[in-house]
Each structure stands twice: as structure tokens, then as C-alpha cells.
């Protein structure tokens, strides 16, 4: 039995339960708004905890990931085991466990409870959603269950805060006591083998020095048919342990206790004894309103149509509903920038503050409304129980790509921004599926790509109807979205058949009963995700904005710029004009723009653009486009501003206003190749830039999040390499093929 630590100032309580047991609502009911979300050190498993006080004692409640079993097959399950065994960094030893069970599905929920009770920690069982169980005709005798389990059993309805005071009182009563002596449901022969394995570990010379290993961990090691523990925390033991385990499992099989089947058999036999006479279930379940809704919502035709309508509504809300808020943020940043410009003298510091700092922060904040709206909708769909149906409907399609329905939500989120999409992939249990989803999520057309699409489509794609009711510009945008999705499908298929090939685990998800979404839970989740985005993307985008600013600003050699013949000519013309004349101001502004453009051309980034021009020439790009594309590698959203600068529209090029956009488009249309009258931009050039932007990994924040989520530098490097190669190839084929067609059709 684990040692129960002496009472500390703050007690640590672990909250554990199956998914869909109302665990999050119970956690919210216990700790209120005092919640914190982060990661467990070294792993990308979300650590959710909160503080509560009871009878003058501070209690930290750690909400463990929703699990069906403590059998560690994934990071989530491993973290839960480690937290309960006191082995997890960043979490003090657990002094009490609250095991949350779904009243309407007690039999299956007691499976996890039996594993938790075996750990010997002080435990309280909370049977949640009693109202739902009663409405289905299920009767539960909590006193009898408590007597049989040997731990307090409290009935709760967390959403309505029913039973929370009783639960807190039970937690207080049990805290600090020794956990009850619990007789394991597994057969004696199994425990004899565990004793033998404990002895094997204590002996040195088995590949590592002798050591004591916690008994629950040894049990899990023997029962772990997936080999996860052998490969992870027992990897150092190598083949001697593998041989020992093989022999041990063979002996168990010969005794009629083959693993892992012995565990489910023994535990379910124990559960039948526990619930016998304490839980009464009806012989036949009457159809509920969840069943009636599911008949429509999971229907192949109606369900798919409703799902498609919901997705269209979600996109509409994300892309149209966010516009006024995005405009407000942009206007606020522009105003702040103008105020700084008005109050500071020209120089490096002013430029850094306006272009680097305010521009960088604004560049991040402008996406926040879309992300908040997206997560608000996802939160509602998740909380009411619909998301599991969406995963069911999408699984038919996703399984053809080698993924499962669970990859759908991350992909959907990635249409707003790849970062929340990659973070949402944590719900995928299978590591290979999760990694594949992370690696293809950046191919979904995020909203940062839209400004450059809007600019180039409006400037170069004719506004013509197609087949009477389609619009060529709309079709071009649709084609770019479709290109991203199709490429993601092909890359996912290739990855699952090559680098990430492996056995596909069965796809199993529970379809929870529908319920009204809890406003508090949804809003809390929305704010949490929004903050995570601002913190994560904000710091990185801000840093790269400053770097790009520096690359475009320095060396800032005024003498060298002013020596340029075209600037000297403009300056001379201006000097000859009457400062009171009507054309003076226009010419002065033009001189200023040209001067600024020259500074950019002579900047480090401008020089880099010229250096790489031969590389991008086959794509139809000159050094200016190359320069804007290089500048947008850390954050693609800055490409429009950079194009504005390199095509001499000035730093304040306002592509949003109608007049500004027209001026911008005209300038791009008039641009010619250096030293010739040949137009720089053509439809193939514009298409090649847009295809490049569709496929390229131009977002340092996304790569940093991939690094964090995969705990490796290899995968962000791989993503960058494959996406950049695809983008170059896509841009090249588009330009060359487009030019060839243009020549043929004259």
C-alpha cells in the first residue's frame, strides 16, 4: 500500500473518471473559477487543476484526463497512472482520489474504479448524473455500494450543484486516513507472479541495478499487452525484461489466466458482485429523446445534410461574424501606431515600436475573434454531445485516408488557425493518427492566407461568370481551399503507408446523451483556448515580427539611398516646385514612398530577395515577390504589408479600404520586370503565388507548436521541408502550365 504523506498545507486531490461522466462539471462545481490549465512537464497532456477550501484547509484538485482504464496505452493514461503513483513531475503526491462514475452506466464505470481502489489511496466515489439514470428507470442504492466498496459513495448532479456539499464533506472525512485494504479481484496465481517479478527487479544484474518497483506498476507491466510500458519507462531493462515477461505470461496462460483477458474477466466478475442487489436496471430501455434525435442526426442522408449545414454556419460565423471585431482591432492598432508616430521622432526606435511591436501584436490579436468564435461553436457542439456524432459521420471519409473520425475536429479548427487545430489533436489516442493529423493540419487553408488571396484574386482573376451561375473569382478561392484539403488527404495517405505505417487500433467512441450545453463550461473553455493562443502564438509571432522588421529596416544607410539616381531626380524636381503649389504634396509623398522602398531594397531582406531571385524565377517571380515571400516565411500574414513596401506603396498601404486596395492592385498590375516593359504579374504568376501560399509552411508559431506537441525537432523540420518542397513544386507547375496554356490560347 502506498505511503500516505503527512498532512501538508495544501492537500492534493485527483479527480478521475471515464469520459462523458460530467467530470469537468464536477471539477467546476468543486473549484469554481479558480482553475489553471497547463501541461505536465515533458509531455503534452493537459494539466487542469484548481484550488478549493474546505474547513480551513486548502485543497488542490487535479482533474485527470478522462479514461476508461488505467492500462497505459497513451500519454494520457500514463500520466494518470504516474499522478496516482506520485511519480509525475510537477504534481505533489496525491492524498485523496475522487472517482467520478456515470450513474447511467455504472457497470462499465466501476471497471476503472476497481483499478483505482487497488492503488490503496484514500478514495471517495461520486456517482454523477443521478437524474439521468433515474429518468431511465435505473435505481442505485448508494449506501449498499459504499458498504461493498469500503469507501464513501456520494450521489451528485454536478451541473445543478446537487450533492457537492456532501462530496466535500466526504472528502474531508476520508483525507489523511489510510486507504482501505482492498482485495484485488485478480486471481492468486497472478499475484504470485507479480511477487516473483518484484523479486526479479530487486536483483541486480538484469540489465540494470536492482530496484524496487511499485506493485501497481508491475501489475500494469504484466497486463500491458500493447508493450507501451516496456517501451517507455522500462525501456532501460531491454531484452532481459522482455524474456522474463514472456516466460511469466506463458506460465499465466498455462494456469488459465492468459493476459490481458484475465483482468477484464476478473474485474467484471467483481463488478457483478458489487452491483448485485445495489443497482436495479430495467429489462428494456425505452427510447429516449437522445435516441429520437440520433435517428435523424446519425442518418446517412439527413444526418450528413444537417452536419454540412452546421459546418457552413460555423464557417460563416467564423469568417463573417468575426469581421467587425477584426476591423476594430486593426483600426485600434493603426491608431496606436499613428499616435506613436506623431509623438516620436523618426528613427529606429519609432520604427521598431510601430512596425515591430504594434504591428506584431496586432497581427496576432486580429485572429483572436475568429478563434474565439470557432471555439465557442466547437465548445457548444462538444458540450451538448454532438461532436461524437460528427466524428461518427466523418469517420467513413477519414478512414479512407487512414485516419479516424477523431481527426476531424483538429482539421476543422485548422481552417481558422493551424495552432488550435494542432492542439486539438490531443484527443486522438493513437500516436500515429495524432502525428499524421498534426503534420497535415497546416495544409488546411487558415485565415492568415486569405488577405493575399483576396488581393491577388481581385487584381488578376477576371470577374466573369462561369456556367451562368458560378463566379470565376469565387471558384478560384474554392479551388485553393480544395487544393489544401486534397493535398492533406494525399499526404496523410502517404504518411500512413510509409513513415507512420502501423496497426490501426479499432475506432471506438461513446455517443453520450444529448444535453443543454453549460454556458459557464463553454465560456470558460473559450477564454482558456483564446488565452493559450495569445500566449503561444503571440510570443512567437511578436518575436518574428521584430526580426522581420529588423531585416527590412537595417542597415538603413540614408546616404546610400539618397544617392540613387531616380531619387535624386525626384528630389531635384521637388526642389524646383513651388511648396504652395497643388502638385507639391503629391510629389513629396511619392518621393517619401520611393525613398522608403529604396531603404527596403537595400535592407538585408531586400538583398536576400535579390540573391534568391534565380531560385524563384521559374515560378514567374522577380526579386520583389521573392523578397515578400521570404519575409512571410516566419508569419505569412505579413506578406501583404511587405508587398506594399517593396512595390513602393509605403508602410501604411491600406489594402482594406476600397481606395487603398484599388491603388494596391493598380500598382501590382503596372509592375514590370526590371529594365524592361514586360509586365511582372500575369494570371499564372498570381496563381503560382497563391498555390505557393496554400501549400507552404510559412508560420513559425505553427512549427513551434508542432515542436511542443511532438516533443521533437524532427517533426517541425519535416513539416517545413515537405510543405516548402510541395509549395515550390506547386508554384512551378502552376506557372509553367499556366503560361503554356496562355500561349496556346493566345
Amino acid at each position, binding site marked *: 500500500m502506498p505511503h500516505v504523506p503527512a498532512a501538508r498545507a495544501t492537500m492534493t486531490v485527483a479527480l478521475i473518471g471515464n469520459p462523458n461522466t460530467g467530470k469537468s462539471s464536477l471539477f467546476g462545481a468543486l473549484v469554481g473559477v479558480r482553475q489553471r490549465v497547463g501541461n505536465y512537464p515533458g509531455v503534452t497532456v493537459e494539466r487542469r487543476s484548481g484550488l478549493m477550501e474546505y474547513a480551513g484547509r486548502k485543497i488542490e484538485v487535479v482533474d485527470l484526463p478522462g479514461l476508461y482504464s488505467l492500462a497505459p496505452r497513451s500519454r494520457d493514461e500514463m500520466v494518470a497512472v504516474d499522478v496516482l503513483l506520485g511519480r509525475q513531475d510537477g504534481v505533489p503526491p496525491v492524498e485523496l482520489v475522487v472517482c467520478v462514475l456515470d450513474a447511467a452506466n455504472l457497470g462499465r464505470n466501476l471497471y476503472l474504479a476497481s483499478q483505482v481502489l487497488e492503488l490503496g489511496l484514500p478514495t471517495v466515489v461520486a456517482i454523477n448524473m443521478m437524474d439521468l439514470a433515474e429518468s431511465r428507470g435505473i435505481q442505485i442504492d448508494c449506501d449498499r455500494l459504499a458498504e461493498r466498496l469500503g469507501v464513501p459513495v456520494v450521489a451528485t448532479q454536478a451541473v445543478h450543484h446537487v450533492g457537492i456539499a456532501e462530496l466535500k464533506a466526504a472528502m474531508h472525512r476520508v483525507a489523511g486516513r489510510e486507504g482501505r485494504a482492498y482485495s484485488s479481484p485478480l486471481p492468486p496465481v497472478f499475484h504470485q507472479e507479480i511477487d516473483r517479478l518484484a523479486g526479479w527487479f530487486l536483483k541486480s544484474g538484469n540489465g540494470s541495478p536492482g530496484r524496487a518497483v511499485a506493485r501497481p506498476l508491475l501489475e500494469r507491466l504484466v497486463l500491458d499487452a500493447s508493450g507501451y510500458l516496456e517501451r517507455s519507462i522500462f525501456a532501460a531493462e531491454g531484452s532481459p525484461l522482455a524474456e522474463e515477461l514472456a516466460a511469466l505470461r506463458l506460465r499465466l496462460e498455462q494456469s488459465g489466466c492468459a493476459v490481458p483477458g484475465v483482468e477484464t474477466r476478473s474485474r467484471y466478475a467483481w463488478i457483478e458482485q458489487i452491483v448485485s442487489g445495489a443497482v436495479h436496471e430495467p429489462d428494456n430501455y425505452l427510447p429516449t429523446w437522445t435516441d429520437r434525435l440520433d435517428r435523424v442526426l446519425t442518418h446517412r442522408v439527413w444526418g450528413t445534410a444537417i452536419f454540412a449545414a452546421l459546418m457552413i454556419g460555423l464557417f460563416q460565423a467564423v469568417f463573417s461574424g468575426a469581421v467587425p471585431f477584426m476591423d476594430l482591432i486593426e483600426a485600434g492598432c493603426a491608431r496606436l501606431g499613428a499616435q506613436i508616430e506623431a509623438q516620436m521622432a523618426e528613427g529606429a526606435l519609432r520604427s521598431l515600436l510601430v512596425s515591430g511591436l504594434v504591428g506584431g501584436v496586432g497581427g496576432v490579436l486580429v485572429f483572436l475573434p475568429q478563434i474565439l468564435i470557432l471555439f465557442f461553436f466547437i465548445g457548444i457542439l462538444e458540450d451538448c454531445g454532438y461532436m461524437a456524432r460528427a*466524428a461518427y459521420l466523418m469517420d467513413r471519409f477519414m478512414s479512407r485516408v487512414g485516419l479516424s473520425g477523431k481527426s476531424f475536429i483538429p482539421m476543422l479548427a485548422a481552417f481558422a488557425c493551424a495552432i488550435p487545430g494542432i492542439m486539438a489533436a490531443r484527443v486522438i489516442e493513437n500516436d500515429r493518427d495524432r502525428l499524421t493529423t498534426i503534420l497535415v493540419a497546416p495544409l488546411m487553408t487558415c485565415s492568415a492566407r486569405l488577405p493575399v488571396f483576396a488581393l491577388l484574386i481581385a487584381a488578376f482573376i477576371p470577374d466573369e461568370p462561369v456556367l451562368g451561375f458560378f463566379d470565376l473569382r469565387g471558384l478560384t478561392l474554392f479551388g485553393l481551399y480544395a487544393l489544401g484539403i486534397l493535398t492533406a488527404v494525399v499526404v496523410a495517405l502517404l504518411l500512413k503507408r510509409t513513415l507512420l505505417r502501423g496497426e490501426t487500433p479499432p475506432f471506438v467512441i461513446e*455517443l453520450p446523451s444529448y444535453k443543454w450545453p453549460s454556458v459557464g463550461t463553454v465560456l470558460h473553455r473559450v477564454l482558456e483556448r483564446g488565452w493559450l493562443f495569445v500566449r503561444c502564438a503571440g510570443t512567437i509571432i511578436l518575436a518574428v515580427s521584430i526580426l522581420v522588421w529588423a531585416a527590412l529596416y537595417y542597415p538603413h544607410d540614408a546616404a546610400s539611398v539618397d544617392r540613387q539616381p531616380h531619387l535624386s531626380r525626384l528630389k531635384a524636381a521637388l526642389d524646383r516646385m513651388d511648396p504652395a503649389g497643388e502638385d507639391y504634396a503629391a510629389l513629396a509623398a511619392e518621393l517619401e514612398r520611393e525613398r522608403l522602398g529604396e531603404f527596403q531594397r537595400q535592407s538585408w531582406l531586400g538583398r536576400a530577395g535579390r540573391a534568391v531571385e534565380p531560385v524563384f524565377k521559374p515560378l514567374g517571380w522577380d526579386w520583389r515577390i521573392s523578397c515578400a515571400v521570404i519575409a512571410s516565411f516566419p508569419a505569412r500574414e505579413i506578406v501583404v504589408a511587405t508587398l506594399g513596401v517593396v512595390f513602393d506603396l509605403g508602410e501604411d498601404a491600406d489594402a482594406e479600404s476600397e481606395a487603398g486596395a484599388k491603388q494596391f492592385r493598380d500598382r501590382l498590375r503596372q509592375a514590370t520586370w526590371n529594365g524592361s516593359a514586360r509586365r511582372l504579374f500575369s494570371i499564372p504568376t498570381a496563381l503560382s503565388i497563391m498555390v505557393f501560399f496554400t501549400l507552404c509552411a510559412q508560420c513559425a508559431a505553427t512549427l513551434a507548436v508542432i515542436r511542443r506537441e511532438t516533443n521533437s525537432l524532427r517533426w517541425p523540420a519535416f513539416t517545413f521541408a515537405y510543405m516548402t518542397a510541395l509549395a515550390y513544386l506547386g508554384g512551378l507547375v502552376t506557372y509553367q502550365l499556366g503560361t503554356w496554356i496562355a500561349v496556346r490560347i493566345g
Partner: protein
Amino acid sequence: MVHAVIPLKRLLCGQAAFVNRISGPPDHVHRLEELGLRGGVRIEMFRPGSPCIIRMAGNKVCIRSDGLLEVLVQPAETLASP
């Protein structure tokens, strides 16, 4: 009348059955058993196909098993209400 054991995917909409056995990689079988899908449990087909939705002890579970995993069931005497 005793019904023959058939694969889960052949169960019709609304048809009830008892799980006879699950065959496949031990870890995958173990996973399904942990979720409550194990020998002797009564299920009812809610939405056939791949993936399918079955009702199990009042709850619904969506399952797609690949070729390696097979859930074999024995249909119950009567058809449950659709």
C-alpha cells in the same frame, strides 16, 4: 431456436444480440472489453454499417473494426423495437 453466430456487421437495424466472442490482437480485444463490449453482453444494432452504432446497457457506442478484429454475436430471439 438457436441462432447461428454471425459477425457484428451482419446484424440488422434494431436487431438485438449477445456478444459471443471477440477475436483479434489481444490489446485491441482488451480495449473493447474495458469499454464493456465482452462475451455475454446484450447489444442492439442502432445504425448498421462501418462504423456502426450499437446500443449497450442503455448507452450508444460507435465502432469500426478493421479486418484484424472481429466481433461475433449471436442474435437474440426477437427483434427489438426499431
